[in-house]
């Protein structure tokens, strides 16, 4: 058994992978939308679509597609 190194100092403990460029862009845009447009789901959908930040298939977001994508990415 190898002895664990001390100290354990890991910036990222909740990730399973390095975020993709798509994930980075989506997260940064979400922060902007939350700051400028509001916190309701409708605000978020409108805010993302008006900024042309679309779902991975290129389609505009709907409440359903956004919920599903967040569920996948936030699991």
């Amino acid at each position: 058994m190898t002895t664990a190194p001390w100290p354990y100092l890991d910036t990222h403990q909740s990730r399973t992978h390095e975020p993709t460029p798509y994930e980075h862009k989506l997260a940064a845009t979400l922060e902007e939308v939350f700051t400028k447009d509001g916190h309701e789901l409708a605000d978020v959908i409108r805010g993302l679509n008006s900024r042309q930040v679309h779902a991975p298939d290129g389609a505009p977001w709907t409440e359903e597609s956004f919920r599903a994508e967040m569920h996948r990415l936030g699991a």
Partner: protein
Amino acid sequence: MTLSTTATAEHIYATGLRNQWHPVVPSDFVAPGAMRKVTALGEQWLLFRRSDGALSMLADRCPHRGAPLSLGKHLGDRVACWYHGVEVETDGTVSSVPGLPGCNLEGKKLVTSLPVREAAGAILAYFGDEAHPEPAELTLPDPLTDPEVEPILCYAEWNVPWRYAMENLLDPMHGAFLHHESHTMYDGDTTAKFRIRETHRGYFFEKTDQRGVNFDWVELCRTGIDWVDLTIPYPPSAGPGGAFGIVGAACPVDAERTGVFFWRYRRVQGWQRDTWRFLYKTLIEKRHWEVLEQDRVMLEAMPADADQGENLYQHDLGVVRLRRLYRAQAESQSAAADG
């Protein structure tokens, strides 16, 4: 036996209070079928997980001649010491002495095995002394068991005495200064009046003139495990769900080292929960980490005798109270041996 009842109050104060639960390491530090050596309360331990996930925690000391069991072999449901092959079960019983079958060590429970639980991604263990082997009643921190609340664990190892890590949490005023350049604690008055408010499980140390702006209150909770609860507002960029809370706890590793546990939690469900978790993983966790690093840098730079020559003022009441409590408990735990 480990954690003897003859330890001095000084030793207990330095290496961690006994007869209660402490967090040890994150659960995923010990994969199924694996084992891991850890230090806690100044002693060496072996965390051992069977392939079915069942976890046990043994003193890392072979009952034969004291070799570390952590150098031994994981046999699925036992560990075999590397030195002469003695096999120890997860409850500390010697199951076989291969060099001398039938030897009278067989069947005897010769290794300390601590009661363990797992909660919200962490391993917790009960560290009783010889006089108190039965686990104290444990009530888990409520934000970690509330199904409406989403906690995410951050664990780090700091070269500081465990008390400094706890005192730092009972010192909300440092938020407005040490963390002034942070994404969450830039706001709030830099002067404040505090009071202590008793609860059935500990006490609040809180500002009398400000709430919901910065790190304005903290509650010490002693529920079989010591933890603190506090709340810090998020900026609007974090989306719906309001402030985030922190459940903080510490594992006293030895007199100089501490494992710190911070569960950031938020009352969010559904898409709000998922979105927060996504933002947390992608962007927020790193910012939280930078705040924590400010604490680490400051605490690790504190002189070893920092608590000897202080000049305290009103903001330090929460710390003074904590110290008194811990010191008294260390004394009674050592005095128990004389009685």
